[in-house]
């Protein structure tokens, strides 16, 4: 039925559960460490190589540990046209002292540049973990970063 495919389940179509299993593992471990990959492989009766080949294909699977908040700035054409993209990346870089692909030393923020996130009507747009933030201005970005900085450990959504 509709329930989240269970990582415990194994059947002839077990590989079809791999993306769901990788999401579950990433949530539990925080990222897809070699141990997490091995764990998923064991559960689905796949080889770690099979699991890694899938995990490494998709940009949403993290093969490196990241910060508590993943800031994803859209650099798609529509966001660029409305002065998002490079401008917002530069502002975050200045504010947090990290370049795209990096994480702050306190483990709070990671910065990533992403392509069109189908939110062109909200351009310029960014994502913070699974939440979309649209119509971003330099002021609202400052506010958002300040708000996130003040969040307690473990509170993932704002």
């Amino acid at each position: 039925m509709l329930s989240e495919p269970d990582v415990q389940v194994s059947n002839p179509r077990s590989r079809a559960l791999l993306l769901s299993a990788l999401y579950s593992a990433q949530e539990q471990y925080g990222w897809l460490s070699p141990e997490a990959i091995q764990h998923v492989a064991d559960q689905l009766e796949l080889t770690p190589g099979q699991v890694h080949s899938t995990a490494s294909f998709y940009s949403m699977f993290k093969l490196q540990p990241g910060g508590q908040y993943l800031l994803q700035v859209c650099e798609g054409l529509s966001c660029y046209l409305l002065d998002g993209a490079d401008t917002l990346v530069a502002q975050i870089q200045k504010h947090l002292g990290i370049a795209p692909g990096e994480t702050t030393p306190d483990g709070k923020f990671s910065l990533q540049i992403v392509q069109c996130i189908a939110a062109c009507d909200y351009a310029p747009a960014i994502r913070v973990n699974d939440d979309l933030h649209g119509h971003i201005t330099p002021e609202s970005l400052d506010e958002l970063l300040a708000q996130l900085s003040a969040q307690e450990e473990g509170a993932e959504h704002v």
Partner: protein
Amino acid sequence: MFEPVLTQNVQRADSEKIATYLAHGGYAATRQALTGLTPGELVEMVKQSGLRGRGGAGFPAGVKWGFMPKDPGTPKIVAVNADEGEPGTFKDRLIIECDPHQLLEGTIIASYAVGANQAYVYIRGEFYLGYQRLVQAIAEAYEHGYLGKNILDSGFDLDVSVQRGAGAYICGEETAMLESMEGKPGNPRLKPPYPAQTGLFGLPTLVQNVETLACIPHIVLRGAEWFASMGTEESKGPKIFSVSGHVNRPGNYELPLGTKLSEIIYEHAGGIRGGKQLKAVIPGGASTPVLTPEQVDIPMAFETLAKAGSALGTGAIVVMDESTCMVEAARRTAKFFAHESCGRCTPCRIGSMRLYEALERLERGAGLQDDIERALYLSDNIDARTFCPMGAALVNPARSTIQKFRPEFEHHLEHRECLVRLH
């Protein structure tokens, strides 16, 4: 007077809930289809409606349904393509987030018509809100007896589940999506065999875009003639146009196919921001060739755009005003495609990167003497030399932008600087 149907619910409070949907006539089409029409009659009705796929390729939906084997002994699958990723496009997100039951109705009716007892929705990984709402909507549909065993006493069974993608543009291509649903990297498959013969898990599979399926309940309720009464000769029915970029009111606008591009930009989307001049328009998502201001009176339809050397694609309109550097627009789009190549076919894997590098050099004022020619040469040698349509998709924006705005590229090359400055 045109009356929107695909977006009729999206502004309502709690539009994603089944109570709201039912209060406005929801699931009447499912009842009518499953208890009053045969699968064959439905396939015929969709053929008569003239509905063409809204995911980009525009293949006639009823014909696709007709390709599914009729043998009742073979298990069949419906795979809903909710992996909306074409840059500039955000129409399916609207349906999924704000009217998921409309999508489910289309899915149920399509599954009944092709004899599938299992449907999967493959939703873009980034659509977390949409994923949650869809999971909730499916649970509600089960509770109300629109999914599960013996739906509405019709004897028809259907299970639907949702699978999240994980960030790969190529998975919007139907065979790459099937690979991904099987837990593999999203490398497109060679066709034939087509999914209707050998699809998910090797079973006959109908792959259909979200907006295409959303049209189905309305065709069932109002009839094929009603649907075919809108549009042009070869492009029938309503269409959601996603408008973004330099317009006053970016957003989704549901209009009949055949509506003039200029009407969409200037009337519905409120015209160009800051009273500036229009410079270029992408009519159907990033992979469709760019149009110039002289072309904006074109009707937005499959055949008219094809004739103009572009494509309707997903109907995603990206508007650029006079402050836009077209070299940068081409560079940015080329970067996207180079990043999203799945890597299987050499012309796409290597060619997309070389194309990006040439455009990047030109943009930054470090172009090599033959970089414009190189970009065109690469484009001609990537197009139609790949497994999947990604090859054509990636060269379209680059090649068309060079062809239509060549003096800007030459200025970058000769003067090592830009003719225009954004903002």
